[in-house]
């Protein structure tokens, strides 16, 4: 059982092969920050961005600067501690590496986008000093703090508390906050702006998708093994939490778009967030609640096969090579 308190290190027989597969798949997606190129963005920031768009970017950078570190923090202190499956812990090891890559990506972004050292340190302090970013951080802390003293999941009450944390980070932090921020990035890309940030986002978004999928799979296993935890109270609390997450993200939106950016409005963002929230609810096994449509047609670019001109841009659609030791050179395989 995945929430057992006795440390489980057994991989044979494998109890959760689905998590092992997630680990293996995610390894094929390894990338590094050497593949990022912010040089064109730099020109855009200097010459092309309107002050309104520049404000939006500053807020996004301030959010990105600390967000992945927060996720990593929770991953180690909560997920790793309590999800007692050695297969899932392997995946978490890779996820932690992903989070560090994202942290490094956004460090590069801060260094490239904010030349002034004072602005740089302000960005890293945003989770305390900029109210709209602080709201998001506080939301995370609220669900992290509640289980700070949680050493052993020996009662149902504690298990529920942990489950709430798991749902919060999968459905709200990675599943809504990040989805919201990525939409701004793709909105700007659609206007031909900041291709470096958009390319970086392609990598990060793909990783985040995997993280959400894995967390949802873990929640699915908990639901199978401990169906009694999924009572009406949990459903109500989850719905309230998602409502709150949308509200917090909308406060961020009002600030980020406070100067008005043509082509995107808080109303559209709200529809989009509700649309994402409905998808998270379905993933959690609950019915949809908001029933809005995705108002951002440009997001379709994320949903289709990508074909990159090699000479112009770095290809992001590929998988990592494989070990030669296991596979033989043969001449009669189908291809």
């Amino acid at each position, binding site marked *: 059982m995945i929430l057992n308190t006795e440390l489980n290190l057994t991989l044979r027989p494998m109890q959760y092969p689905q998590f092992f597969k997630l680990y293996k798949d995610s390894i094929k997606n390894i990338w590094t920050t050497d593949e990022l190129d912010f040089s064109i963005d730099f020109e855009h920031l200097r010459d092309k961005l309107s002050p309104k768009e520049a404000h939006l970017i500053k807020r996004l950078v301030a959010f990105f600067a600390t967000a992945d570190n927060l996720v990593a923090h929770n991953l180690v202190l909560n997920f790793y501690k309590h999800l007692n499956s050695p297969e899932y812990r392997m995946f978490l090891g890779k996820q932690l590496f992903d989070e560090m890559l994202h942290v490094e990506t956004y460090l590069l972004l801060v260094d490239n986008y904010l030349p002034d050292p004072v602005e740089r340190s302000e960005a890293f302090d945003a989770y305390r000093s900029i109210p709209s970013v602080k709201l998001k951080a506080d939301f995370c802390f609220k669900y992290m703090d509640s289980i700070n003293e949680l050493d052993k999941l020996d009662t149902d009450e504690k298990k529920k508390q942990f489950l709430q944390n798991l749902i919060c980070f999968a459905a709200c932090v990675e599943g809504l906050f990040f989805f919201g921020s990525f939409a701004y990035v793709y909105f700007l890309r659609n206007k031909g702006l900041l291709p470096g940030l*958009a390319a970086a986002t392609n990598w990060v978004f793909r990783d985040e998708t995997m993280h959400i999928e894995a967390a949802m799979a873990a929640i699915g296993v908990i639901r199978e093994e401990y169906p009694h935890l999924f009572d009406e109270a949990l459903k109500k609390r989850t719905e309230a939490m998602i409502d709150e997450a949308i509200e917090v993200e909308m406060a961020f939106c009002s600030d980020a778009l406070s100067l008005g950016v043509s082509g995107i409005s808080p109303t559209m963002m709200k529809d989009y967030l509700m649309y994402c929230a409905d998808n998270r609810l379905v993933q959690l096994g609950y019915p949809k609640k908001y029933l809005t449509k995705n108002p951002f047609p440009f997001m379709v*670019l994320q*949903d289709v*096969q990508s074909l990159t001109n090699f000479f112009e841009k770095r290809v992001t659609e590929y998988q990592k090579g494989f070990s030669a030791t296991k596979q033989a050179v043969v001449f009669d395989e189908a*291809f």
Partner: protein
Amino acid sequence: MGLQDAFFKMGYVFDSPEAKRLSDQISETVYYHALKTSSQIAKKQGAFPAFKDSRYAAGFTQVQLAQDLQPEMPKLNFDWAALAKDIQRDGLRNSLLIAIAPTATIASIVGSYESIEPQISNFFKRETLSGEFLNINRYLIQDLKDLGLWSPTMRAQIIEQEGSIQNIEAIPLEIRAKYRTVWEVSQKTLIDMAATRSAFVDQSQSLNLFLEDPSIGKLSSMYMYAWKQGIKTTYYLRSRAKTKIKKTTVEEPKSYSAEEAVACSLENPETCEACQ
């Protein structure tokens, strides 16, 4: 450029014998007339300086050379022996005439498919320096419209299926065969097509190969086969990402628990989604 467009327009399946025949005919016609014209210019203005030392002066074009070297020759439609003689007599203005380019950028400007390749997907995004652009297979949409099958649901379904229509039951099988993506065509087809085309290409061709999930076994088999077919060289190998970004423009498929399914089917046997 645009070989795939020609096949779509003519209703040819990429790996059919008709498609291969057409591909050979196009290449043969282009090479034949390139040589003929170059020879006519040479007659007036003189041959390229090293003509005397070239194989053309000895009575060989690429076609005659290929006859000796290639395991499989295409069917010939022009009088190549006569042309070789004319060239021997009149000379040739250009020492090299034919290369098949990757055409990544111009194909996207013109709005056709790249080079000699099958389509990469029925819905795809081209990433360039100037931005990212959505490309939709307009031939497929027209065919679906003609059949009354084109709708927002169909669009979402194709996106959900990563741009493939192979598992969409509503679409007739012959349409599905016609609009396969490069991931769904055997790479042997591309290699075989390139091999017979080589008889009409005196420089080289940009032959990209595609494996969704490459392995050492598949790669070694594929490249050995290409070498045995007499391919001079191949170009890029494209593969696909192991995991994908979450789709935000199509809806999450709803899953039903066992109890829900049972309960629902008892109550509404006619309309229950879970039981459909």
